């Protein structure tokens, strides 16, 4: 339906004009405009509509995240790689462990790294005139899984030939092949054993440790002699002297204690001598794959790796924030929408009733 032109004309003709007193009031109000009401810094305030703000904020946040990742990646690429760090940490742990051993006797240790010659073990030679506990740790690298099996077999053969025995052995073939064997060989043959085992592959690391047991052995022997002498005296008294019942009982109890101590001393002496007779060698056979050895990365590769790591962490943090904030945002959005809907309905109602 087209509205009547007369009606439109009449509506426009009767267009209301503000009364003079209202005009005067508004003029008076406008006259106060000259007084600055805004704070001086309000001009500096950046006014961006929400849509434009998002358009600016999103690329800015992306650039910031990438820049942070790049800078951190570049800074961290100077640091040693994770593998090297792990190796150093492992070595530090081992050192800590060794230093934690109670110093019952001075320990003489010599460690040789990759490329050491088999003869390097000669640097610490066992003293044939003293009781010593000798232990060696040896890691050799062979080319592949078959090499691990061969080396393990040769190690067992060598041990048998030298008059020793195997304490434990673990051989893994296939992917990540490696072998861990603990051997005991006569001290007199330990150098021969180390030389032979070192020849099984290229030496990755080698450590020989010697702990002197002679002082302990001497102490045990002295105590044993003393205890035996005391026992002999007591036995003589009990057999030859007329003793009252109480004294006899006391001496017999003392004799029993001494005999028990003698038994312990003899066991200790036997164990110490056994320790001094046989040396312990821990042999580890590895392949390049099982050690995870990789070619050193270039600075660019390390930078990229570190940058990706930082980006991943940034993404994780952003995701966590999103997960935490999402329910609140949804509640706020629902509240806002509900309030808006309610106000719209209320306005419609007011406009319909007025």
């Amino acid at each position, binding site marked *: 339906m087209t509205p009547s032109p007369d009606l439109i004309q009449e509506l426009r003709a009767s267009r*209301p004009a503000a009364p003079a007193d209202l005009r005067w009031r508004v003029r008076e109000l406008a006259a106060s405009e000259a007084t600055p009401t805004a704070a001086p810094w309000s001009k500096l305030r950046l006014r961006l509509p929400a849509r434009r703000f998002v358009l600016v904020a999103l690329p800015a946040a992306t650039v910031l995240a990438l820049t942070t990742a790049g800078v951190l990646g570049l800074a961290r690429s100077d640091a040693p790689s994770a593998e090297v760090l792990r190796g150093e940490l492992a070595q530090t742990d081992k050192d800590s462990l060794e230093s934690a051993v109670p110093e019952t006797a001075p320990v003489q240790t010599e460690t040789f790294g990759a490329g050491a010659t088999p003869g390097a073990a000669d640097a610490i030679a066992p003293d044939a005139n003293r009781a010593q506990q000798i232990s060696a740790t040896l890691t050799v690298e062979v080319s592949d899984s078959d090499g691990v099996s061969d080396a393990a077999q040769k190690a067992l053969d060598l041990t048998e030939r030298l008059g020793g025995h195997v304490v434990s052995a673990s051989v893994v073939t296939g992917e990540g092949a490696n072998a861990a064997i603990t051997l005991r060989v006569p001290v007199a043959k330990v150098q021969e054993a180390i030389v032979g085992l070192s020849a099984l592959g290229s030496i990755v690391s080698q450590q020989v440790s010697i702990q002197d047991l002679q002082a302990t052995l001497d102490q045990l022997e002295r105590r044993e002699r003393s205890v035996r002498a005391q026992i002999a005296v007591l036995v003589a008294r009990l057999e030859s002297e007329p003793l009252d019942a109480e004294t006899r009982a006391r001496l017999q109890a003392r004799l029993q204690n001494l005999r028990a101590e003698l038994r312990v001393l003899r066991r200790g002496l036997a164990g110490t001598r056994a320790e001094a007779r046989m040396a312990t060698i821990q042999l580890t056979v590895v392949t390049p794959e099982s050690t995870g050895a990789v070619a050193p990365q270039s600075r660019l590769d390390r930078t990229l790796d570190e940058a990706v790591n930082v980006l991943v962490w940034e993404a994780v943090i952003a995701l966590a924030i999103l997960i935490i904030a999402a329910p609140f945002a949804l509640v706020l959005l629902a509240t806002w929408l509900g309030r808006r809907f309610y106000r719209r309905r209320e306005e419609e109602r007011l*406009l319909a009733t007025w």
Partner: protein
Amino acid sequence: MSLDAPRSADLDARSFATVAEELLDDVYGYLLYMTKNWALAEDLTSETFETALRRWKRFDPRRGTHRAWLLAIARSTALDWFRADSRRRKREERADAEDPRHDREPAFGEGFSAELEEALRALTAGEREVVALRVVLELDGDETAALLGISPTAVSTRLHRALAKLEERMRHHDAVA
């Protein structure tokens, strides 16, 4: 005939006084149509310009004209008053007794014929509002839709319904006379 008015190109930095002087009649006319009470329209017009002066620094010419901005403030002011009045009447439970909608005082003031005033009185505020904006103040469809928060189609529908009702009332008045 076209109801569209040429879009005002006031993307400038005029003073508040200039804008107020130029648009006072528009704001007052709009509020008079909304409230159908000249005294109330005057009060709300004053309130609208006070609010506008406080927000003057925040006006962004890229988002609309001065007129649309002032009318939006006027609408919000009127709705706030309607809301407050509705609450007050509910609280006092005197709805009909003192309802200003039912007083017989000439509400629109001078310039309106008796039949036009009677016909306008019969419209709801929502209908009078769209007549004021589109016919009297000659805002275009998009501007009106943005101001009312509805679609241009809804504006058109509401306007035609209001004009039809107005015409019907006018015809009825003539017939009775």
